[in-house]
Each structure stands twice: as structure tokens, then as C-alpha cells.
């Protein structure tokens, strides 16, 4: 398409990439060009084909058609290792490292430092620590990877890819689980790499990040190339229009004035509940039609708080009251019996059941609450699936598709549907908009508001403060595994929250 007269040859050039799955066209003749030292954003709605394009260029899925040239030489990698050998390192959307190996082993898997054929554990750990310290991370590298949060696992995956001295680095939604500070660190590393002439492909749904770091944008829509331009030529509104193929109806507007002061019915009250070594005792009161947001850095105790409330890691002190009665919440089942629902942060390991269909995944929690002996009829399941596929705009709208075949953002919507189907009195959302595109973002925030209006109590963990302030009635700030402040009313401002988070003695403690 483009004439490349005087320009240096592109580092990586894809032309006419196509891929379909069982009759479904995920990529349709997509061209993509990456130059040396360029940070190139690959954008598009959920299911637009970004991850598929990446998998097709690294040989994880075989492309149906298309050519690929690295430095002018045609290549066709057959696997991720192949691609790596050719100089393309990738961090996939779903981290795929070995969870039971140590952090150090994961970093150096397949390229451990050896002496006389034996792995030099000490040397490997030393190098692992050095590598991670570039990312501002000081953790025990001998501990198994699975003992750390997804965010840290993601950083490990990124560090592993960055360290492999590739020519091309591909990052598929690397920042989805990172907080602002870690994103900064990652960006610093990316700038360094691009200065060294490495071409970087960056997939994200955070448009701010695109404008903060990228040189060029390529947009996919429904598997087709929608456009490609330098960032300067593609202002935000145009970009969104290019992605969605329409105007964004309602951008995340400010929170409507809340009916303050009036006493809402208490759904659940926690007094002095905590768990030694996990989260310091805290008070929390959740009311009908009220959104409580939890804000803090990674590892500050947000997820720990909600897991305690839902009985995943039950409290070892304090008292809980639900609907005026004292209760102990010892397991998710007990929490569900009280009318709680919990959409976990870790979609792949704790959320979806990949091989079950969209319909079955949506029905799962409701079915579990009803018990095995009163099965939802097929008709009820179909109705449920149809309702939520429509409500949340799950794509493709096929209830019989295994959920593992959906794009990341659509899996997230299925998970949300699973809990909405149980019509909970208290819904706990851990990073509900992670990996969700700009269009769906607004819809989900709208949904949260609607649920609230209908009298549901919500407890929401979010790293996206801009977003949190638009719907929260109260924001609890956490630091070092303790609740340190409670903001409400006019105090709910991004700047106030940030200031509260940053107040000494904040420490860059991970895990």
C-alpha cells in the first residue's frame, strides 16, 4: 500500500493477514508496519482481533493468508519460541508462565545460567533480582510465581520478554493489571528500549497511555484494518470514532448529584474484621443503593478486603452483620446465601471456566445457589444468556461458544453477567472494567449506576480512579494492608485520593 521510497525499510511488515476460526473471520487482510525504535499502539474494540493478530504473527495460531517480513526477510514463525528465535518477544494477554516454578526460574526458563551443565541457582537468583529491580520490584525471587498477584506475574512476564534482547517486543494489554506507578516504570523501560532501536507493539484500552507514549496508532475494527496514523494526526475523538465506527454516546461524565444524607437500608456491616498477615482489622458499612470504592496501590489490601467480605479468606476477628443479624461468613457459599456476589480480579484462574459455553458460564453461580437438585431448565438458561448477551453486548452473540474462545474483554462481560444473574443484594466487583474497551467502559459504568439505583449495594475495587470518582459514594483508601482513610462527598476527587494514597509512610512494597 504505502510506498517506502526513501524511508528505511520497516523493521516488521505484515501484509494481508487473514485468519478465520470455524467460519468466523477474526482477521481480514490486515496490514501492519512497525519501524525500528517506534512504539506502535494496536487498538480496537473487544474482539476486534488485536490478540489474534499478535498470535498470528508469532505463530501461536497459524495464519490463513498473509506475508510477514522482519528486516526485509520473509519469515513464518511456527511457535512462540520460533518467533523469539527470530527476534520477536511477546507478552500475551493471558500470562502464560509456569505458576509453580519460582520467579527466578520463570524469568530464565530455557536459558538458565549453567556451569558444567548444572543450573547455577545462586547466579540465576542474583540476575533475577537485578532484572526485577529495574522495574522497581524487590520480591523474593525464590518463591513460586503463583504466590504473587497477577500484576506482579505480569511484570515478571514483561521483564522476561524485555530481557530476551529481541528486535521486536509485543505487549498485549500489559498495563491492565498495573497501577499508575508501575505503568510509569514500564513506560520508562519501554522508552529505553525504543531508544535502542527496538520496535514495540503496545495493545491497550487506556487511551491516555496511548497519547503518553506511542508514536503511531493502528486501529482494527471487526477484524479489518480501520486505519493507521501517527499519534499527532489522530486526536482522541477521531480515534474513538475510528475504533467504534460511531460516536461514543456518553463519555464517562461526572457523577450525578447523589441523594446524600438520607439513611439507606444497611445491607452489611463489618466491625473490626481482619485477618492476621493479610489485612488489618477494618470497619465497613455497605448500604443499599450505595457504591463504596476501594482505592490504593497494588498489594495495599484491596483484593484482600473483598476476599474477606466474600468469605474466600474468612476473617479471624471482628463481627459481621447482615440485614441486622450477626453472621459469620466462612465460605463463598455462605456469602452467596446472604445475597453476596463477587466478580474476581483474576479472570482466567478464578473467573471463567474456559471450556464451558457462554450460557453455562452465565448460569453457573445462579445454579450453584439453587443447588444441584433444582437445575435451571435449558429454556431458563437460554433466556438468561440471551438477556445478558444483549444487555452487556457480548460479542459474538453466540451463547453456545466456549467462553475461552471469546476475546478478553468479552470474557470479562460474561463474568459480570454470571453475578448479575444471581440478582445479589451486595455485588463485589474487583477491577470490573479491566480489559474492557472504551465503548463498553461507559456501558458498564452506566450499568453500575443503574444497579445502584435499583437498590443494590456495591463494593468496587478499581485502579482507574478517574472512573471510580464518577460513581462512588464513598472511597476507602488503603495502604500497606490497612484501611487508612474514608472519603465521601466533595472529598471524592482523584487528586485527594492520590494524595491520601501517597501520604507517608507509603512504601513501594510489593506483593
Amino acid at each position: 500500500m504505502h510506498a517506502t521510497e526513501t524511508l528505511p525499510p520497516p523493521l516488521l511488515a505484515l501484509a494481508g493477514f487473514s485468519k478465520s476460526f470455524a467460519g468466523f473471520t477474526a482477521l481480514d487482510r490486515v496490514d501492519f508496519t512497525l519501524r525500528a525504535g517506534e512504539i506502535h499502539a494496536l487498538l480496537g474494540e473487544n474482539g476486534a482481533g488485536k490478540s489474534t493478530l499478535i498470535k498470528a504473527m508469532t505463530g501461536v495460531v497459524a495464519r490463513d493468508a498473509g506475508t510477514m517480513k522482519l528486516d526485509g526477510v520473509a519469515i513464518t514463525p511456527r511457535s512462540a519460541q520460533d518467533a523469539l528465535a527470530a527476534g520477536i518477544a511477546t507478552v500475551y494477554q493471558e500470562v502464560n508462565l509456569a505458576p509453580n516454578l519460582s520467579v527466578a526460574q520463570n524469568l530464565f526458563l530455557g536459558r538458565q545460567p549453567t556451569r558444567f551443565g548444572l543450573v547455577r541457582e545462586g547466579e540465576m537468583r542474583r540476575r533475577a533480582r537485578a532484572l526485577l529491580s529495574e522495574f522497581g520490584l524487590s520480591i523474593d525471587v525464590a518463591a513460586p510465581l503463583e504466590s504473587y498477584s497477577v500484576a506482579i506475574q505480569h511484570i515478571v512476564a514483561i521483564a522476561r520478554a524485555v530481557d530476551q534482547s529481541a528486535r521486536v517486543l509485543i505487549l498485549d494489554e500489559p498495563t491492565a493489571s498495573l497501577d499508575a506507578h508501575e505503568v510509569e516504570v514500564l513506560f520508562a523501560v519501554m522508552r529505553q528500549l525504543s531508544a535502542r532501536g527496538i520496535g514495540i507493539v503496545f495493545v491497550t484500552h487506556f487511551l491516555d497511555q496511548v497519547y503518553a507514549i506511542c508514536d503511531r496508532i493502528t486501529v482494527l475494527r471487526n477484524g479489518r484494518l480501520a486505519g493507521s496514523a501517527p499519534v499527532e494526526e489522530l486526536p482522541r475523538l477521531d480515534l474513538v470514532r475510528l475504533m467504534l465506527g460511531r460516536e461514543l454516546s456518553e463519555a464517562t461524565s461526572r457523577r450525578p448529584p447523589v441523594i446524600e444524607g438520607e439513611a439507606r437500608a444497611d445491607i452489611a456491616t463489618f466491625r473490626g474484621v481482619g485477618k492476621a498477615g493479610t489485612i488489618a482489622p477494618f470497619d465497613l458499612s455497605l448500604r443499599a443503593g450505595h457504591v463504596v470504592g476501594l482505592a490504593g496501590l497494588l498489594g495495599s489490601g484491596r483484593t484482600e478486603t473483598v476476599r474477606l467480605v466474600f468469605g474466600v479468606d474468612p476473617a479471624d476477628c471482628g463481627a459481621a452483620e447482615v440485614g441486622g443479624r450477626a453472621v459469620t461468613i466462612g465460605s463463598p457459599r455462605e456469602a452467596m446465601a446472604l445475597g453476596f456476589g463477587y466478580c474476581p480480579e483474576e479472570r482466567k484462574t478464578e473467573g471463567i471456566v474456559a471450556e464451558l459455553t457462554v450460557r453455562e458460564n452465565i448460569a453457573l453461580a445462579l445454579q450453584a445457589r439453587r443447588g444441584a437438585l433444582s437445575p435451571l431448565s435449558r429454556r431458563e438458561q437460554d433466556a438468561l444468556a440471551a438477556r445478558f448477551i444483549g444487555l452487556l453486548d457480548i460479542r459474538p452473540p453466540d451463547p453456545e461458544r466456549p467462553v475461552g474462545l471469546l476475546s478478553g474483554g468479552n470474557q470479562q462481560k460474561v463474568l459480570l453477567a454470571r453475578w448479575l444473574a444471581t440478582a445479589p443484594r451486595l455485588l463485589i466487583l474487583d477491577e470490573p472494567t479491566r480489559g474492557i474497551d472504551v465503548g463498553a467502559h461507559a456501558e458498564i459504568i452506566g450499568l453500575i449506576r443503574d444497579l445502584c439505583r435499583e437498590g443494590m449495594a456495591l463494593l468496587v475495587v478499581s485502579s482507574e480512579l478517574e472512573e471510580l470518582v464518577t460513581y462512588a459514594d464513598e472511597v476507602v483508601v488503603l495502604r500497606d494492608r490497612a484501611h487508612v482513610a474514608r472519603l465521601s462527598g466533595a472529598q471524592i476527587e482523584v487528586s485527594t485520593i492520590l494524595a491520601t494514597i501517597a501520604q507517608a509512610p507509603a512504601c513501594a512494597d510489593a506483593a
Partner: protein
Amino acid sequence: MALRLPRIGTSQIVALGLILVANWIVSPQFFDIRLQDGRLFGSLIDVFNRGAPVALLSIGMVLVIAMRGIDLSVGAVMAICGAIAASLADSHSLPVVLAAALGAGLLCGLWNGLLVAVLGIQPIVATLILMVAGRGIAQLITEGRIVTFTSPDLAFLGGGSVLGLPTPVVLTLGMMALTLLLVRGTALGLMIEATGGNPRASALAGIGTRLITVAVYMWSGLCAALAGIVASADILGADANNAGLWLELDAILAVVIGGTSLFGGRFSILLAVVGAFIIQAMNTGILLSGFPPETNLVVKAVVVLAVLLAQSPRLGGHLAGLGVLFKRSKSGGRRS
């Protein structure tokens, strides 16, 4: 973990049909069926009759495997329950004999289930304990001898017939129907598939994964007990050393041939039973063809290899041209 869209079960049924046809080629009387004294006789009927114990085992095994578990103890449980049935048969009425033997099977399953679900021991290790110890227990029951009995009531379960079909076949069909009803008539099947597919997510969705785990191992014990009773009733006695020996492996193979992955998740009871009959049809075919029975083991090994290769997504594509049988077990061997 590759995911595929459609789930078809016809391939296993076609494979069974092909093997039966092969048997007919080596032995032209294969499909001859006679009615004698109200019971059907013939090689075909024999395949189903002989295959019944493994088919029974596979009904329990398929549920265990769907939960990401495995039950190595079923052969030993057969020996235990067969021994109990044989030693009580001449002194007690049939209901008592059955209750004792089936109860013992449930107990064995409870033991396995508790080790796995409560103590968190890996299934392969947990059930290995009973696999090894069970045969010893069975020998204690028979006091090291081969116990024989004469009770016609119990013998009927092995050699009798109902509506012309051998009792073991009827029992297998009955057990299959009951299990299907319990599992697919309720939401248990969905919960088993969800738990096998992603245990953590399922527990967070409120599924009582521990309880289901215990229940599934108990059901496997029950199926093994029934298989043990049938085996004893068939030979009018119990041989603690040889009853059910290595049958756990046949049952696992049957489940795998039936398309259920050893990684858990989607399962099919019906196809596991078909898998069991495929194995028996191969056994019978080799006997009929006059090859030495030892070749049977080699043939089985080849089938296992073919199924496992076909389950590997990477090799699946290359296998396509390797002959009809391979091709059949390939497309069927994949779970959805």
C-alpha cells in the same frame, strides 16, 4: 489447552462398528445370534457380556476423571466386593449380600474421596493406597483361598438373563441410565464439568466442590462394587488375587477413548461405555482371529498411543491420514 467448537460422539460409535465388522471378517459367524432357553447367545452378545465389568467401572471413572481426578483403586475394590459377595452368598439372602458388597464399595469410595477432598492428597497417590492395600484386604476376606459359592440368586447376576439379555449387560445399562439421570437430570453434570474445568473459579461461584468430589469417588466405588459382584457371580467364586486385576487401566482407557480428557472438564458417560465395549471388541477380535492373546496387549498399547497422540493438538493434524481407525479416534478423542 485447545478449545474446539463442536462436540460429536459419532466417531466412537463408528469405531466400535468398524471393529465389529473386522471381527466379522476374521470370524464369519460373529454376528450370528441364537435364542436358547430365553437367552440370546453369540459372539456379539459375548462382547457386551464380557465388556460389562469394565463398562461399569468406566461409568464411575468418567465422573472422577471429569473432576480432574483418577481412581486407580477400582480393580482392587472389585476384588474386595467380589470377595464379600462370594463369602456371604451361601449364608445370607441376596439383598443382604448386595447391601454388604455395595456398601463396602461406597466405603472404599468415601475413603478415596476424603483423602482427595479433605486431606488434599493428589488423586493418583490417594487411590494408589487402596489399589495396593485393597487386594490385601480382599485376601483377608477370602482368607487367602479361592472362595466358591453355589447360591443361584447371586449366580443369576453373572449368568442369568433378563428379556433375553445377559444380566451383566442389563445391570450395566441400568447403572448407566441411573447415572445419566443423576448427573444430567440435575445440575450435577454442569457442576462436575465446571469444577474439572476450573476448580478455583467453580468454588468462587459457590459450587460445593469438596462434597461433589467425595460423592464422585463414592459413585466410582459403587460402580466398582457392582462390577466385582458381576465378576464373582460369573465365575461362582472370588479370587482375591486376580479379580479385577489391571481393569482400572482398561477403565481409564475406555474413558479416554470416550473423549473425556484426563485434564478434566467435559465428559460423556455414554461414550465412556462405548469405549469399554470397543476395548472388549478388540479383545474378542484377537481371540477369534487366532493370534496369541499376548498380542492383545500390544494392540491395546497401540490404541492408547493413537488416542494420546490424537489428543495432542499439535500432532492431531498430522495423524489425519493414518488410517480410518486412527482418524476416528482422533476426531472423537478430542474433547470439545
